[in-house]
């Protein structure tokens, strides 16, 4: 159970949050992309043994969507910020 330091609420336990998937690049204009580029954006987020960026929603707290930098091995959380 992670402890996530919400910028608004302070340190809260993971169960107050909903996981929102890997932090994708900003949603591109679909019309400006080839099929391959679209598929790449949509389905190929990195999944390393190490640092990842991911979204979490403080569903049971302030309601803010957060972006976390988390280490997938140690669970260390290096950064929590609002939005993307």
């Amino acid at each position, binding site marked *: *159970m992670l*402890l996530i330091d919400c910028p608004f609420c302070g340190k809260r336990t993971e169960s107050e949050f909903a996981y929102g998937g890997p932090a994708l690049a900003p949603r591109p204009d*679909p019309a400006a992309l080839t099929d391959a580029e679209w*598929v790449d954006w949509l389905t190929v987020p990195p999944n390393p043994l190490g640092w990842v960026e991911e979204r979490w*929603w403080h569903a049971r707290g302030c309601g803010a*969507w957060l972006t976390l930098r988390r280490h997938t091995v140690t669970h260390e959380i290096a950064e929590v910020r609002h939005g993307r």
Partner: protein
Amino acid sequence: MAGDRLPSRGRIDRSRPLRFRFDGRDYTGFHGDTLASALLANGVRITARSFKYHRARGIIGAGVEEPATLVELEGDAASGNRIATTVPLVEGLSARAVHAWPSARFDLGAVNQLIARLIPAGFYYKTFKWPDWHLFEPAIRRAAGLGAVPPAFDDSYETRHAHADLLIAGAGPAGLMAALVAGRAGARVLLMDEGIEAGGSLLAHKAAIGGRDALDWVAGAVAELAAMPNVTHLQDATAWAYREHNLLMVHERAPRADGLRGRGWRVRARQVLVATGAIERIIGFDGNDRPGVMLASAVQAHLNRWAVRPGRRAVVFTNNDSAYTVAADMAAAGIAVAAIVDSRASVPGTARAQVRGIEVLPGHLVTQTHGARGLRAVSVTAGGRSWRIPCDLLAVSGGWTPSVHLWSQSRSSLRWDDALSAFVPDRPAQAVTAAGAAAGATGLGQALRQGAEAACAALGLPAPEVPQAEDAPYAIEPLWTVPGAGAKAFVDIQNDVTVADLELALREGYGAIEHVKRYTTGGMAMDQGKTGNLTIVGAVAERLGLTPPEIGTTTYRPPYTPVDFGAVAGQQAGPVVLPYRHTPLTAWHKAQGAVMYEAGARWRRPGYYPREGESFQQTVDREARTVRQGVGVYDGAPLGKYLLRGADAGRFLDLVYTRPMSGLRPGQGRYALMLTEDGLIFDDGVCFRLDEGRFLVSTSTGNADAVGQALEKLLQVERLDWDVTITNITGQWGNATLCGPLARDVLRAAGTDIDLSGQAFPFMAIRDGSVAGLRARVARVSFTGELSFEINVRPRDLPALWQAVLEAGAAQGIAPIGSEANHVLRVEKGFLSLGHEVDGTADPYDLGMGWAMAKGPADFIGKRSVLLRRSSDRPRRELVGFRPVDPERQVPEGAPLTPQGRKEATEGFVTACVRSVVEDRWLGLALLMDGRARIGQTAHVRLPEGAVAVTLCEPVFHDPSGERLRS
């Protein structure tokens, strides 16, 4: 045989005798006893049967390390797999050995010993793999006797959260010292200890702190801590798991003052101190599990703490100094110590000095034990000569293993300490430190200093004063197994793993220590290798010509000791497990005798309202017919509702839905789909424009939270600069939905200031006004295919509205409608349902809803992916209707469709099947590969009893033009 209790000393209260029962026999012990000490005091030597071979076993340890004697408690205190040395004796306690039937003394399973050499490590894997392990598992489990689940559900458990500046695991000298330092500094301290009493190792042997009896110091420390409001001190409470970000799980057994059977603590600590002590380990030699063989430290604890003499004539077998104190204590208690067998070639003078008058045999080994129902003699060997020494007690010390379980669970690293011949804590991976014997301290003074220093370091405090205590010398030369140890030399007594098993594993190529563990089960399960793990590591290293640090350890896993399920589940058990939801009408529905279901998002909703003498099907038919022919009303409160405001709300909704919403006029609504970005249907619903800047989004019940989450994510992550706010108003509006051709008449009769004519209030419109004198917002949507008015009011007004429409509709024969009838009605109309047709794999075209995809260049979520998928011509599962060829044949929802009903890959499945009131027969919907092209043909549902032929049709059975719902 009560002659094994010493006349004086010990921490038992001889004025408080307690009666108890073990394996069907009655005994007496004293307050302060454990079940184990009381059994030993009563001369009970065989207290258990082993897990696999059903070998007779006795008490081996004195605390959580006890590997052999596991008991089930019976009666009011029923619980399984308790460690006898940790069960406090209470009046009337009743227990039985877990692995034995009918009793540990006479156990039928003991025949396994006769075939022991036929069931070595890996036996189960090799033997019971064909055709399927699960075929054999129940019988094996029964034979292995893993304990039984207590019979009755008990709700007197609790789990709670706690927060601390410093959590200290262990109230021995190091933990108590740390708690004093931290507590005096005002820190929030949680001190958790697994023992019945604080003091740890000090309870078992004589020592002095600050010039007085160490136990006086303990009592003083406990009293001082109790007076500190910032300190919470729990005994009989084990920190059994160390999770990420300093979350620790603690199991408090029987917090009697609060009338609870157990309590689980989830502690989030800023800093953690592991002061969990050390456990003496076993040595591998044949018969090292015979009743009468004990850990030296356990002998000492039973002598000093419980005033129990576990034998009359003893031999000590050691590879280190600590057993010499034990020998001295034994002699002082009147036990004849025949010899101290020390594997080391030379014994330090400080050790010898403690046992003057006792024969010390340096460079000797114990190779075997003898005795049919308990220890009678041991074989001793040196220099090629071997002889027997008669004895009924063998005290074994293989050295001390720091209890690094918690430390390692935190993912912190270990290093090998040559002087200790053990792994000790190295680098912390979280905010954790270790102190005392757990950190490798061997002296009492050292433990106290480490405890104090750890608290100071954790909290940034100046160095405190620490009371003086002696640091007794400790030296060890590793001895893991004796030469010749084999199939009766146990390295994991609980799991019946022997030296021969280790050697078999190595021969078969399982050289990595994690493989050895899995192949032999050594170090697994509830024992977690407390007395034997390091012996296994050492033995494997020896046989591979490596050193223990080259072998490393296996992963330490929670729980450290057995945990009651109740202490994990807490209050979330029994009748109120999951957070069910009620509408303001729940009480009314129940009073009407409705059969309540838990539907989407855990709402408890009426499934149907049976009347006297009706069958289920008759009720559902009646309710459905009421809507088709007259008028019904249902409780629509759970429907998800979001209010969107702001200058950009319109274009935000255009992005979210498959059809544009920004062009809606105030008071007008539109049905559309929401897709996921990968182009699959996520939800469907109606969006209304309330006025220029406000929109109302309605979602399906089960998806209400998910839609809110998705909308907020899109807004907060992708469209930060757009002026939109989203508010969940699901709970601010309840509704009674009138449906059926007579709905308008009923609404009119209930009294409203809204013009209900078709021109003034068309389908897909929304109007504010009053209904039955209540402030209302009425929407013309339909989930049934009939004329419908969804009358929304504030939930506090819903019961009044409900009553008003029932009275207003009495003349038209209005009836409440449950979700079963609603399901029939929506299937007849071919409307989608979440979890049925919308199963997370369908896109709009699959469900024949290409019309709901806005044409034109504008983008919306999921559009690109739908188009991409559509650009390939691969066949898809498509929504079709079907009628069983036999009209009376019901088909289960979820049943697969296969070619001709043969045993082949499925080509689709039944999403819904109902008894239609408009066709008076069974019919349904299905998702079928290339289904639209097959309409008119026959398909087959494959069922265990045979194939069912169905005729495929358009997925709408009622009013395909939609005249009725628009009327």
